[in-house]
């Protein structure tokens, strides 16, 4: 190796340049931007201080956190139930179900918001139908409010949760159940002592992904509520590239906060995946294959919102 010439390293150059220009420089720029005073000299945490003293921005952060927590938890609960159900079906049917949820996970962002407006917006088909039939259960429901956002967010969280979780149900091997039953465990005891603990890392990992996914969700919220609802992502968008760009530095600081929260969530996912590997050591080859599957499953759903 030593004696071979290293000209081939040149092949890495375009990659290094592109990543530096469009990934590293922007991140650094955003970080410095969030602590640089308007006159351009020195360092200040003034923007952060303003954010944390402003009810308005605190509300945005709180709204985003609440919506993310709610939609992720609902997503994970429904996703878990669905993932378990999916594994109960014969492979053919299972693949079809997975395909449908994979397909609908493409249906996110602007088109999704639009579909919900058609269905449940103020002039939506169901809204009018319910009104006509006199069902007032839904009278209090407003698509353009908190509950409406949660509903729409859950829509793209559930298929994602399902896609991420169902492979781990296959990680619970039939022989564990058999071994447990021979050792005297009931069905429920097996799930309590083996099944659920084995699933836990995947559940928490997925929760991290779901949380990051909804924290960063912009398209859906933008299309659905525009700037009428105070969400962190929408707020940032308006500050930086809205019709009237007012305070870009504040936007930088908010973006740093948002980025930190999603990084943290993805880090959780990473830690949990490592945990999973402790359970399932395998040949390097198997790891590659499972990762390939993982990435393929993960990708279509993640793309729109992150």
């Amino acid at each position, binding site marked *: 190796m030593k004696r071979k010439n290293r000209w*081939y390293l040149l092949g890495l150059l375009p990659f290094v340049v592109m990543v530096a220009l469009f*990934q590293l420089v*922007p991140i650094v720029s955003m970080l410095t931007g969030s602590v640089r005073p308007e006159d351009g000299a020195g360092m200040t945490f003034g923007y952060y201080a303003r954010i944390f003293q402003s009810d308005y921005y605190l509300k945005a952060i709180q709204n985003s956190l609440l919506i993310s927590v709610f939609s992720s938890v609902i997503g994970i609960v429904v996703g878990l139930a669905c993932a378990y159900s*999916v594994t109960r079906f014969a492979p053919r049917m299972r693949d079809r179900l997975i395909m449908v949820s994979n397909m609908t996970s493409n249906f996110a962002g*602007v088109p999704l918001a*639009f*579909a919900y407006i058609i269905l449940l917006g103020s002039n939506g088909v169901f809204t009018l139908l319910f009104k006509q039939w006199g069902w007032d259960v839904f009278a209090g429901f407003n698509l353009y409010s908190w509950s409406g956002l949660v509903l729409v967010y859950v829509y793209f969280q559930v298929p994602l949760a399902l896609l991420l979780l169902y492979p781990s149900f296959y990680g619970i091997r039939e022989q564990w159940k058999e071994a447990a039953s021979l050792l005297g465990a009931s069905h429920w005891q097996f799930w309590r002592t083996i099944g659920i603990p084995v699933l836990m890392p995947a559940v928490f990992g997925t929760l991290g992904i779901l949380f990051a996914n909804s924290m960063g969700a912009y398209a859906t919220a933008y299309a659905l509520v525009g700037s009428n609802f105070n969400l962190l992502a929408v707020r940032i968008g308006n500050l930086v590239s809205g019709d009237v760009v007012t305070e870009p530095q504040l936007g930088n600081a908010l973006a740093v906060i948002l980025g930190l929260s999603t990084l943290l969530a993805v880090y959780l996912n*990473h830690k949990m995946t490592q945990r999973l590997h402790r359970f399932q050591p395998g040949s390097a080859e198997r790891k590659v294959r499972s990762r*390939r599957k993982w990435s393929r499953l993960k990708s279509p759903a993640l793309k729109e919102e992150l």
Partner: protein
Amino acid sequence: MQTPSKKAGWAPRSLMLLMMVYLLLPLLATMIYAFAKEWQATILPESWTLEWFGGMFQDARFLDALWKSLYLCAISIVLSLAVMLPAVFIITVYLPRLESFMKGIVVLPYAVPGVVAAVGLIRAYSSGPMNISGTAYILIGAYFIIVLPYMYQGIRNSLLTVSAPELLNAAEMLGAGRMRAFVTVILPNIWPGVVTSTLLSFSVLFGEFVMTNMLVGGHIQTIQVYLSRRMNESGHLASAIAISYFLFILALSMILMKLGKKVNRGISE
């Protein structure tokens, strides 16, 4: 030795049925809306029409947006392939020690939401030597980063599954130069995997809204941006566009799935 006969009980069945309804309802609604002449306060519209689809293709701005989407995606992906193929190859084959570092770089676009990335890009390129904000260049750069994870993983996995380092050694021992070995031995073998990641990247970029809207929304209208602007003007037309978009993505994912199966069959067992 034998799998127990799989027959789902009533609970999984009804749950899945509910979920399918929940997932397909918005799609169905959009579809009906796109074909409906008028749809209000009835379960199904009273009359149907194709005029919205017709209108879609007569709308010059739509065609323009479609064209812009297509060529921006295409350019970004070609650029990404040209940059990533050699880079991933070199790292996987010659510098495997850098892999964990690469993984970190590649996972960043996952972890940093589009809004945040866009904020950084706007600040970095709104002034100074590279003032490219609002142009296609900044968008292509952003697109490059968005597809980075898909391209990296796709290419890397294909390289590993065809055991590129061994293949390369064999080729070199048979007297092929390094470049020649890459072109004649490695490329044809990883091709299916590369096509898969290309298509996947394409569907990802085609559906991209956040970055596009924030970076160049005022100047360049891609199909997603256009859709968001038209939504409030004509619902029916917007539905027609949304459905066409969805069908396009659907077709793409079908191809992906077929390819994926083929690739997987090729490698495993």
